[in-house]
């Protein structure tokens, strides 16, 4: 007997749902019972539940996790991985809500917001671009908007950075140039956002994922915004600087880490060599790794306490990094 039409998944029986689930997950992952949950409250939607959005049944898996404000692996209850039971495609279901709060970094307090409106606008703006997360908004049965986002299979930039090379020197001479090249590509994506008048709002190294299927980096999570002052994109540029420092140092080079691993190098570090906001991170990486060329180190130093001028536009950072990238070739191959 053929399978019943899936035109009305809302009336699917438990038996039918279980049959669909068996096609999508290994036998040991098939639950004994399954229920269709309302989506009004994301806290009530759990692992192994089914939610129906726009007539599509989704089998809910884990909540996504993220390290924030020093708390690693904090669960995001409003962001759940799920399997589209019609296609088998893994997606991210994201409940949208607005919140306004004061963010604190390095002793500075500023106004931030999570804005569903901004996220929807940017999803529309970047539709079809391979360098951004893709997704769409659907309404649940009560008319509440939820996002169905592509699940990007791949590693974050931070995972990739710390996973290559057996030492910094090997990493730098064998892999850094291509990593920087890819990062410059990711900067072009942010430049596109900025030139369209949009901020990313939450630029972090784990918000950049190398898509396994395309080999390209894609930016995710752009629903945050911040109250800017004179410099509209300053906070985004600060985030880009932190990512650049992370990939160049093959991880965060902190004063604490130096104290344990390389106290002689710590002796050489002056106040001006530290990160302009996070005073426990070293920005003058050339003092730790002397083979870092001047042109590249000059770019890094724009994010230091000793900086006299700052980047205001992504274009400026891209230009300087492009030059530094060329010098890197000279150095490697001469």
């Amino acid at each position, binding site marked *: 007997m053929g399978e019943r039409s899936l035109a009305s998944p809302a009336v699917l029986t438990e038996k039918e749902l279980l049959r669909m689930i068996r096609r999508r997950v290994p036998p040991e992952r098939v639950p004994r019972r399954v229920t269709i949950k309302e989506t009004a409250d994301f806290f009530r939607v759990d692992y192994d539940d089914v939610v129906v959005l726009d007539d599509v049944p989704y089998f809910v898996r884990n909540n996504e996790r993220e390290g924030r404000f020093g708390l690693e692996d904090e669960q995001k209850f409003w962001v759940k991985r799920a399997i589209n039971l019609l296609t088998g495609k893994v997606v991210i279901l994201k409940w949208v809500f607005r919140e306004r709060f004061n963010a604190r970094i390095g002793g500075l307090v500023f106004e931030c917001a999570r804005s569903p409106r901004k996220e929807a606008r940017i999803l529309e703006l970047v539709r079809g671009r391979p360098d951004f997360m893709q997704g769409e908004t659907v309404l649940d049965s009560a008319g509440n908007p939820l996002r169905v986002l592509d699940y990007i299979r791949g590693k974050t930039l931070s995972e990739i950075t710390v996973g290559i090379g057996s030492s910094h020197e090997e990493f730098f001479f064998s892999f850094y140039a291509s990593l920087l090249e890819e990062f410059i590509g990711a900067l072009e994506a942010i430049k596109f956002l900025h030139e369209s008048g949009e901020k990313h709002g939450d630029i972090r190294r784990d918000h950049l994922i190398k898509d396994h299927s395309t080999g390209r980096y894609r930016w995710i999570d752009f629903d945050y915004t911040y109250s800017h002052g004179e410099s509209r994109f300053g906070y985004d540029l600060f985030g880009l600087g932190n990512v650049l420092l992370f990939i160049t140092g093959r991880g965060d080079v902190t004063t604490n880490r130096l104290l344990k691993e390389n106290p002689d190098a710590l002796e050489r570090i002056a106040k001006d060599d530290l990160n302009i906001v996070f005073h426990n991170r070293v920005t003058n990486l050339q003092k730790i790794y002397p083979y870092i060329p001047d042109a590249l180190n000059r770019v890094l130093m724009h*994010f230091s306490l000793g900086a006299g001028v700052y980047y205001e536009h992504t274009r400026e950072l891209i230009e300087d990094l492009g030059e530094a990238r060329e010098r890197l070739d000279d150095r490697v191959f001469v």
Partner: protein
Amino acid sequence: MAARKTEQPKDRHVLIAVDQTENSKRAVLYVADFLGGNPGFRATLLSVVPKPEEDLFENEEERSAWAKEKVTAANALLNRYREVLIHSGFPEDKVQIRSCVGEDKSLSEIILEYQCEMSCCTVVVGRHHKSKAEEFLFGSTSSQLVHRAENCAVWVVE
């Protein structure tokens, strides 16, 4: 013999950009001390309320209410500072006030547009004592004014 018509020299127009901070108050007091009672000067006190970004507000109503409240506060402040300048010796008809809600431009750009529109020879602002981090993340209006101003002087009052 017909009396020779003498041309009145044009007043020098000073634009003082203020906000709710003490730094702005110092800028106004400086102009009052420095120029008050001297003939040949006029002043415009300007307050630009930064554009309320739509993403920070629930809806347009909330955003408009926020902007309205800020403009009301700005006008009250401008009127107080106008009195300060008048007491220092500026003639009443030579002290104007202007307030506006910013658009998709930085504060320095808006201030310089007013400077250009009103042909002001000097822009005066108070210096905000920002940390390097703050200046890096959010920029500095006085630094931008110093870098961008053309055909006018910029006084940054400490």
